[in-house]
């Protein structure tokens, strides 16, 4: 099982044509340009984390005061802001690879038409993912500007955190896409929203995970957003270590595993 898992992405990814991946992205750029409502969706995705940062980071932060994590003291807003950045990287990309992807996959039959051309399922999956990450990166870049303006990170920290937020986007985008191929209908998205919200609340976003009972702490450390938050927070605060590499490796595994499953499921469902 492990060998097929390792061997098939290598075989499948080995022949990915950048031109065909680009053609898949090109389709989404075209759709964005001909649909004015799309910009509204883009804008709302930016405001959500900013509102959380202002209400909880700044508002609740005024009650909490400074907090100490790992021997370092910082304002509560500075603690929450990197987590909001990771969350924004996650949600922006997920919106594209779940709702939009599912619509194109199940209802518009867009992918059926694409797969009748030389484009292969893995190229389709990579193209959709790259597009989603480009969209997510617009959110995170804007959010980083807000963070620097509010003095919650340094420009250097922001520059370091940006590529990390792109990795977070790739990871959640790939897994979200794989989940979309398993969805039976729109009802299943409610389940996903609940899961996403739980991750949002408990992944060390609003309080250090060490404050939870040990069982919960371990449980949280298994889930993906925790690793995203820790990686991004470390970079924003300038605390980078071996742990950061571990978090990055976890996210990289999500990218590979998600893409592999997504292209496999696309092949199975559309090429029968």
């Amino acid at each position, binding site marked *: 099982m492990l060998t097929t898992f390792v061997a098939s992405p290598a075989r499948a990814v080995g022949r990915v044509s950048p031109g065909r991946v680009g*053609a898949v992205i090109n389709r989404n750029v*075209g759709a964005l340009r001909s649909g004015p409502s799309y910009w509204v969706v883009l804008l709302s995705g930016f405001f959500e984390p900013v509102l959380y940062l202002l209400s909880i980071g700044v508002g609740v932060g005024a009650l909490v005061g400074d907090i100490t994590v790992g021997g370092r003291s910082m304002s509560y807003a500075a603690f929450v802001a990197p987590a909001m950045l990771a969350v924004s990287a996650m949600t922006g990309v997920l919106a594209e690879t779940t709702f939009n992807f599912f619509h194109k996959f199940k209802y*518009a039959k867009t992918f*059926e*038409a694409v797969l*009748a051309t*030389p*484009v292969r399922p893995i190229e389709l999956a990579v193209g959709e993912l790259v597009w989603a990450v480009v969209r997510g990166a617009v959110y995170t870049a804007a959010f980083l500007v807000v963070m620097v303006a509010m003095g919650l990170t340094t420009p250097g920290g922001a520059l370091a955190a940006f590529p990390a937020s792109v990795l977070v986007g790739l990871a959640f985008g790939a897994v979200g896409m794989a989940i979309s191929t398993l969805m039976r209908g729109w009802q299943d998205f409610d389940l996903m929203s609940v899961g996403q919200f739980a991750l949002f609340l408990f992944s060390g976003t609003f309080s250090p995970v060490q404050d939870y009972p040990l069982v919960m702490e371990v449980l949280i450390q298994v889930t993906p957003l925790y690793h995203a938050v820790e990686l991004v927070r470390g970079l924003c605060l300038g605390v980078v270590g071996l742990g950061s590499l571990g978090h990055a490796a976890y996210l990289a595994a999500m990218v590979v595993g998600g893409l592999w499953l997504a292209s496999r499921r696309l092949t199975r469902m559309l090429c*029968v």
Partner: protein
Amino acid sequence: MADQPLIFARDLVKRFGDFTAVDGIDLEVAPGEAFGFLGPNGAGKSSTMRMIGCVSVPTSGELRILGMDPVRDGTAIRARLGVCPQLDNLDPDLTVRENLTTYARYFGLSRSESHRRADELLEFVRLSDRAKGKVEPLSGGMKRRLTIARALVNEPDLVLLDEPTTGLDPQARHLLWERLFRLKQRGTTLVLTTHYMDEAEQLCDRLVVMDGGKIIAEGSPRSLIETYSTAEVVELRFPDGLDFNADYAAKLAGVGERIDPLPDRVLVYADDGDAALAEVHRRGLTPSTVLVRRSTLEDVFLQLTGRTLVD
């Protein structure tokens, strides 16, 4: 290469679980040919088309498309195919013209080349005036024409059309046939499925009749009619025919070559329809309506399977 068939299949089988959709068919389609799969719904036509289009893997048997193996060389084969699926899957998020230019990019065509071909093809399918509009408001016939234009954007060696005119009104159908006939004249190889006999007669040089996943007859439309039917058919409808067509058939015994009682009418197969009709009248039978017509592929299918081709 010139003599090599574009499609070659030996004992081709496609199974979905316990269900056998395609049950061991042999095929050869030569370059420049217009080839048809004729049969009712569920005969295995679309499954065969999807295997030829390299989006479905054969369960067993041998299949070569353009001399290549569809499983190993799927990408290279699809680069030279044009596919018009049974249900339109145009992109609703894009304009009419963008549907073509975007599709062209999947084949690796440059931006300028895809624009040039899009404009040319919109002209060919007479949709130039709708270029900037969305797909949704187009009529069924227009959408079909756009889907066909999209299938031609890579200048394919082989065009696959799955029920190209199903669901279209007669006028839209004739316009589409005329466009497809033009393609055929240019030497493009066409492979199409249909359950319309007149469509097969209009467009196909050669066709196979499929039923239950098997090929039950093969030949040119003319030769199939000559083998499995007569030159003419007399259709007789009797006022009380719904209940007594079998009795009328018995009274007609010996008229023409063969008598076929259907639920709503009785068919008399004869090489001389008028002579057969004279005999009907001589026997004192008084049908309420009479039609003497040329034999069609519908009659062939009826003779081969005992069933009509209607949905």
